């Protein structure tokens, strides 16, 4: 057997077109008669719209129309929220595509101008006058529930969007026991802020709507991670039948969660096209993206952890106030609940867990998934509390983790939050990472440097996460407004070439390459003979999209199963053509042959030809060589790993340098280890961003101060070291390929790893707490304060 294509680090086939400018992003597409839209956005965080005067704008050169909320209201239905966690008293407040009488955040859409050119549309935008009656606003997700806080929605008293509870064991009783027996127990508590982040896809959002009135059909190019969901929701918002809508999202320049939601802007673009019967393009400017594309995180967490004096965790209790922004974004409520609270046990045995999550409305940009979505916030609080416990008990933090890790398991482990992990060997990745680090040597170096007034620190994280979303039955049970299965068609042509049509929608993750590798591996077809088609709802079968590290786990599963169906059919056809019994046909490396006489064979290409021409099919066999699979996974997948960060801190100015980063992850078998590494690199850097540089700042009036790349620091290559990437392989027992997910693990683990490393460095200086991002000034101030104390 030659080297297996499954597991080989072949080059990403998407890259040549992306790197030479030949990709077709939405904004690159030009249609005959294309019009251009620009959207006027609220400059106020909260205001009544008293009146809007659009007359001057309508009269401006090149302008075809100006619409406001009064025009779209009743024509476009409200933008739906599609994730409503059950038993949470959730208030799905109406979210109009354009604000009708109230604006609720800076950036809320107020009016749209459609003109022959974008410049004309922008010029006309300046001619619209809006009379606002400014109202008080609230920004902080916890303060939003304070008595007397400005109220956003009539239907949501105290700005409470929902209250969701997760509980297993009896956390309250365990804390009582701990408090009553301080001889043998210890309790630590902490307030943690998960600051608001901006996902920053390099391609801003864009849409082209082309309404063909004669057919009653709407084509929508849309920068989406999930075009089939867009089609579904677009039909709900516009009233156009789902069968009359085509959504195209072929080349999408990153999403990081921000291209999951259905936005008002795209629906306004569709509205314009339907009104004017001409194609209309709207492309978000970078400045607009800061205001109008969803943000992430924004938790205020209060966390308590109890343990016995020998370092066994007995209970975890969490209260989270999670900012939802001004409206509920499509998947927003699922993020701080299902994707967060269910992971409170992490890789540890924690018998008693309780979490109260309050989703709150604030006068800010709506919040939705941002790479990791809920899980970085869970990993952070767990790892921070364990660090505090270790410090309190004077147990080495790595040892502290070892005492609580779940023992290795291959097929299912239940945790207190009610979920069942698929497989894990948490000690394995920890051992690997620690070996790479040489922990004892590092602690020694640290001690030596400290004696010279130099400060380095180490942070070690063990984590596991929930991804590969997920079983549709569970999706229904947790209030997700759709399924989470995937489908894939594998189609052979007479020439032996193959198209794979998938429902998922990769936008940077490399599945055009890895899915071709799956099919090549299953069927022995050269990988270059396979082309993966995605992102066009008229071409591809139904799928729920690319997010939650699910594409390879669920979509890849569907691809593998379709390939296996092809193999079965090939076997039957080969038996017929070779005049042998089907039981006597064996398959290897793309060849079907009669057992014992490998010369009597048919290649998969022979079979493809014969099946496509269908001159000689066995009785009852359909022509063609094509298979479709609808795959609904029986469980989520739970990748895991251990991450290590080594940092230095300069007490003079508070500068942090990330010196080393080790990531030992287990995502099961790796289809393409180079792509896996790339995902880890990106994920780790994204998480490092939250720890060290990134953070949204609003002023008290809800004005976004970090509204550009001049102020919001996205990490760049020179800010991070070469990473040391390691892995172990623990297959998931339940999906066809045994794969887990790797797109988010880096982000999930790295933020707290780096945070803990910095706090470890600062320990001798007496600093015990810092707010993220760990800017130089914050670090410097904390050192000054600790010195003064």
């Amino acid at each position, binding site marked *: 057997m030659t080297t297996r294509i499954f597991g080989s680090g072949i080059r990403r086939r998407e890259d040549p077109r992306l790197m030479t400018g030949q990709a077709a992003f939405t904004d690159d597409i030009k249609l005959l008669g294309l019009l251009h839209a620009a959207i006027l956005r609220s400059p106020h965080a909260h205001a009544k719209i008293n009146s809007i005067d659009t007359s001057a704008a309508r009269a401006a050169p090149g302008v075809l129309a100006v619409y406001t909320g009064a025009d779209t209201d009743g024509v476009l239905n409200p933008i739906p929220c599609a994730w409503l966690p059950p038993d949470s008293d959730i208030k799905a407040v109406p979210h109009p595509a354009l604000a009708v009488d109230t604006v609720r955040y800076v950036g809320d859409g107020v009016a749209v101008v459609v003109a022959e050119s974008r410049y004309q549309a922008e010029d006309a935008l300046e001619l619209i006058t809006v009379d606002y009656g400014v109202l008080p606003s609230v920004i902080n997700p916890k303060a939003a529930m304070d008595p007397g806080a400005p109220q956003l929605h009539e239907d949501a008293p105290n700005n409470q969007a929902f209250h969701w509870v997760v509980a297993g064991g009896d956390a309250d009783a365990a804390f009582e026991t701990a408090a009553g027996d301080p001889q043998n127990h210890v309790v630590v508590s902490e307030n943690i802020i998960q600051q608001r982040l901006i996902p920053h896809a390099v391609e801003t959002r864009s849409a082209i709507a082309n309404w063909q009135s004669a057919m009653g059909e709407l084509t929508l190019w849309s920068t989406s991670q999930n075009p089939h969901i867009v089609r579904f929701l677009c039909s709900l918002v516009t009233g156009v039948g789902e069968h009359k809508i085509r959504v195209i999202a072929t080349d999408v320049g990153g999403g990081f969660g921000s291209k999951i939601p259905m936005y008002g802007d795209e629906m306004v673009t569709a509205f314009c096209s339907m009104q004017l019967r001409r194609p209309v393009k709207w492309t978000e400017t970078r400045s607009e993206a800061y205001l109008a594309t969803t943000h992430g995180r924004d938790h205020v967490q209060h966390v308590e952890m109890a343990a016995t004096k020998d370092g066994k965790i007995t209970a975890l209790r969490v209260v989270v106030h999670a900012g939802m922004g001004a409206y509920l974004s499509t998947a927003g409520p699922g993020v701080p609940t299902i994707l967060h609270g269910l992971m409170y046990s992490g890789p540890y045995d924690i018998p008693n867990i309780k979490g109260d999550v309050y989703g709150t409305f604030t006068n800010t940009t709506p919040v939705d998934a941002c790479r990791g979505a809920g899980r970085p916030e869970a990993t952070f609080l767990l790892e921070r509390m364990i660090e505090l416990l270790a410090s309190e008990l004077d147990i080495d933090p790595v040892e502290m983790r070892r005492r609580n890790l779940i023992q290795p398991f291959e097929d299912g482990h239940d945790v207190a939050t009610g979920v069942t992990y698929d497989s894990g060997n948490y000690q394995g990745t920890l051992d690997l990472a620690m070996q790479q680090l040489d922990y004892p040597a590092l602690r020694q170096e640290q001690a030596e440097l400290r004696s010279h007034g130099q400060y380095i620190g180490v942070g070690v994280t063990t984590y596991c996460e929930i991804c590969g979303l997920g079983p549709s039955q569970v999706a229904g049970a947790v209030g997700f407004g759709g399924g989470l299965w995937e489908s894939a068609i594998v189609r052979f042509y007479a020439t032996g070439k193959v198209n794979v049509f998938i429902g998922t929608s990769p936008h940077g993750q490399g599945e055009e390459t890895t899915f071709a590798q799956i099919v090549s591996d299953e069927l022995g077809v050269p990988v270059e003979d396979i082309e993966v088609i995605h992102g066009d709802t008229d071409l591809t079968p139904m799928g729920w999209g690319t997010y939650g590290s699910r594409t390879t786990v669920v979509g890849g599963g569907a691809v593998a199963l379709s390939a296996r169906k092809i193999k079965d059919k090939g076997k039957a056809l080969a038996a017929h053509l070779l005049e042998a019994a089907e039981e006597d046909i064996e398959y290897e490396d793309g060849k079907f042959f009669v057992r014992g006489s490998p010369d009597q064979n048919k290649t998969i290409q022979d079979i493809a030809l014969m099946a496509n021409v269908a001159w000689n099919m066995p009785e009852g066999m359909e022509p063609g060589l094509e298979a479709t699979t609808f795959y609904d996974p029986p469980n989520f997948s739970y990748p895991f790993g251990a991450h290590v960060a080594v940092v230095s801190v300069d007490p003079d100015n508070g500068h942090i340098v990330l010196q080393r980063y080790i990531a030992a992850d287990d995502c099961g078998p790796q289809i393409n280890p180079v792509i896996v590494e790339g995902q880890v690199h990106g994920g780790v850097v994204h998480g490092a961003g939250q720890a060290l540089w990134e953070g949204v700042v609003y002023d008290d009036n809800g004005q976004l101060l970090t509204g550009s790349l001049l102020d919001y620091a996205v990490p760049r290559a020179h*800010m991070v070291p070469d990473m040391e990437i390691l892995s172990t392989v623990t297959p998931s027992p339940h999906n066809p390929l045994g794969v887990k997910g790797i797109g988010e693990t880096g982000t999930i683990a790295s933020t707290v790893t780096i945070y803990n490393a910095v706090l470890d460095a600062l320990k001798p200086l007496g600093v015990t707490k810092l707010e993220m991002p760990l800017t130089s*000034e914050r670090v410097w101030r904390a050192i000054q304060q600790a010195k003064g104390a």
Partner: protein
Amino acid sequence: MYAPEFEYHRAATVAEAIQLLSSNEDAKLIAGGHSLLPLLKLRLARPSVLVDIGRISELKGITISDGTVRIGALTTHWEIASSHDLEHACGIMAEAAGGIGDTQVRNRGTIGGNVVHADPASDWPTVLTALGAKFNIQGAGGSTRTVEPGDFFVGPLTTTMGEQEVLTSIEAPTLGHHQRAEYAKMAHPASGFAVVGAAVVVTVEGDVCTAARIAVGGLVPVPVRMTSVETALVGKALNQENIAEAASHASNDLQGEILGDFFASAEYRKAMAEVEIRHALFHATEVSHH
């Protein structure tokens, strides 16, 4: 991100540029465009006419003679950063240029545009102040004048340049055998601009400092000469203690307005001025930090 409408003219000579400025109200020069274009795209600047000086060759290039470095206003940061002659004659300029923005910014941005834009977070104003540079300016009717940085920078985004004047070149003395110069910058992690920048030019005989010119920027509306630090340094051996002692006088020289924002407060920046001066002096004199 869509500029309002403007008229565009390309000038072939400085004289033509000045003529175009004089005959159009509200006209503005454009060089590399890396400060002006963002303002246009944000619609914060609305000149009715842009006069492009980008192709005027007399404004380009680096010449070094008779102890003077002369840099045409239109010379890009990249050209300055990659000039070997300059590295030998006045290394601090090449070094400072290399730390501006990123490759794209350095490829387009010009030293002239940088100083005329007078962004307090820019690097050139600080470095040129410490070097004791001179700005050569041409005005209507071929008149010329030469201005020192102290008489050039007025405040954030304001200089003493007239509306119909063109900055033609910048001159700085070459560094002598006994001179050391260094620019230390605390860069904003998002923009790369200076939160605090400290430029030092010291003359060293034996190990004693016989002259010093030190300026800080980033934290102040216009670059500030650190005369107290300079005084404390002159006559002293350049060792760790003396450098630290001299730098500790920084706050004396920072009595005016200190800029601050949510990323770095005025108080922090003021403290960092001392730290950056120290770093610059340590590097310039190769005194080990620890």
